[in-house]
């Protein structure tokens, strides 16, 4: 009884892709557009296979992921530190909050040329920029999280004799954790969205963004689409392995949103 329904679900899930693929294939084969610009899916798949087998595509992907990891780690460390500082110290809050709320809504890519001027083309500038941009949601959410820890929990813990350190480690941090994790999730998503474009602008030697941008020069549309497919795969993996489990762990478990 199980098997047919599972096959059916699989077929149902595949249907939209089959339809879109068929439309693409129809347009590509109709000859209305030059095949260099609008390759068939078969060619894209072949290029994807060829680039993967020769190790070029994995190398690009690995560099992109390394940059994402470095930038995100920077954002997480600096963001949580600044957020905690702002929430714990009144003077830090009044000094930093206006700056953070001005900086946060400015599109991160607008800083890109400046960062490239200041730190040069390549890895340093791009990792710093990704970290800088991704830090804002982490800062704001950490700050909100610590500020919104229930007053009554703090007082209860104080009455039970918790010192400043224990209060921080056993009440404030766990209380703020859902917000901090939300901030990290938003920061990672932000970092991912901006990284590909930064790679195009920063002329890094390897990286998926650069692969796509470089392939344009040679009218290599199938390589570009293969790169986009790889970006989609990584994005999907991030979504399934990082964002959704985090969301389940935080907002759903804490009862902020019903599953």
């Amino acid at each position, binding site marked *: 009884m199980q098997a047919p329904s599972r096959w059916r679900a699989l077929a149902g899930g595949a249907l939209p892709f089959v*339809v879109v693929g068929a439309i693409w294939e129809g347009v590509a084969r109709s000859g209305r557009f030059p095949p260099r610009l609008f390759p068939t899916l078969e060619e894209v798949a072949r290029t994807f296979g060829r680039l993967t087998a020769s190790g070029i595509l994995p190398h690009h992907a690995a560099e992109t992921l390394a940059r994402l990891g470095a930038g995100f780690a920077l954002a997480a460390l600096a963001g949580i530190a600044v957020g905690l500082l702002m929430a714990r110290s009144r003077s830090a809050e*009044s000094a930093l909050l206006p700056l953070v709320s001005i900086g946060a809504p400015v599109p991160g890519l*607008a800083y890109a040329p400046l960062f490239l001027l*200041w730190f040069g083309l390549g890895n340093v500038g791009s990792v710093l920029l990704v970290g800088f941009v991704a830090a804002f949601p982490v800062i704001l959410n950490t700050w909100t999280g610590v500020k919104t820890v229930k007053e009554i929990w703090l007082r209860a813990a104080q009455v039970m004799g918790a010192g400043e350190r224990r209060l921080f480690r056993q009440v404030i941090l766990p209380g703020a954790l859902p917000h901090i994790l939300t901030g990290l999730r938003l920061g990672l998503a932000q970092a991912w969205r901006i990284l*590909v*474009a930064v790679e195009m602008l920063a002329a890094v030697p390897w990286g998926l963004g650069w692969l*796509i941008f470089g392939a344009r020069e040679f009218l290599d549309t199938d390589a570009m689409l293969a790169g*986009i497919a790889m970006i989609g795969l990584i994005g999907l993996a991030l979504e399934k392995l990082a964002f959704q489990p985090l969301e389940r762990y935080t907002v759903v478990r804490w009862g902020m*949103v019903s599953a």
Partner: protein
Amino acid sequence: MKAAMSIAVALLLYEVLARSGVFAAALVPGLPAIARALWSMLADGSMLKHAGATLYRVALGLGLAATLGLALGVLMGRWRPAERFFMPLVSVLMPIPSLAWAPVFILWFGLGDVATILIVFYAASFPMVLNAWTGARAVNPIWLRAAGAMGARGAALFWKVVVPAASPFILSGLRQAFQRAWIAVVGAEMLAASDYGLGWVIFDAKEFLNADVMLAALAVIGAIGFVFERLVFGALERATVQRWGMLRLARP
């Protein structure tokens, strides 16, 4: 007052850094130089032209995304087969950053407005679709039945019950869509614009080491984003969902 203080202190620190001579003046220009660049670009009208071009692209891309995204999202929320067909496509396309498409769009449509607007459209449509979808599903079934019992059918049910009930979600979708669009347009203009646009100004100024022009354009980008975020969407929210008493529903 305190906010103004801290901004003033930050600006002062920047000015000291700029004058200290540790960094080249061409890379870290002083505030007067930035103000001069901003003023001269405002005075000769070029900044307005750039801002106009950027706003035009955002308006078209966002308008397209809002209209199509709203229609698709509500359709997906109210009609099961549409949800089953489009949801897998949306979840596969969504994690691809819009700017990854930039080189492909440039190749297909050339440098200029079409590619830029399409990138903005791509970036803005997903938050719109997802929020409209959630909103359409979150309509309280009792309202639907009550309205149905009172004789509302078809279009009346849709416009008078479903849309107001989903409006907090739709509005927050629009807000997110604007934020995405605003980021995407700057990146898209750096990559795909050829003569006008705030993103293009910044990128073009880099070639000539005009850091003062870059920072001036950055200030304009920040100011426009701030105005939209606070004034436009704030006013919109007050005029609609707050007046209808729905805001609690949107932000539990």
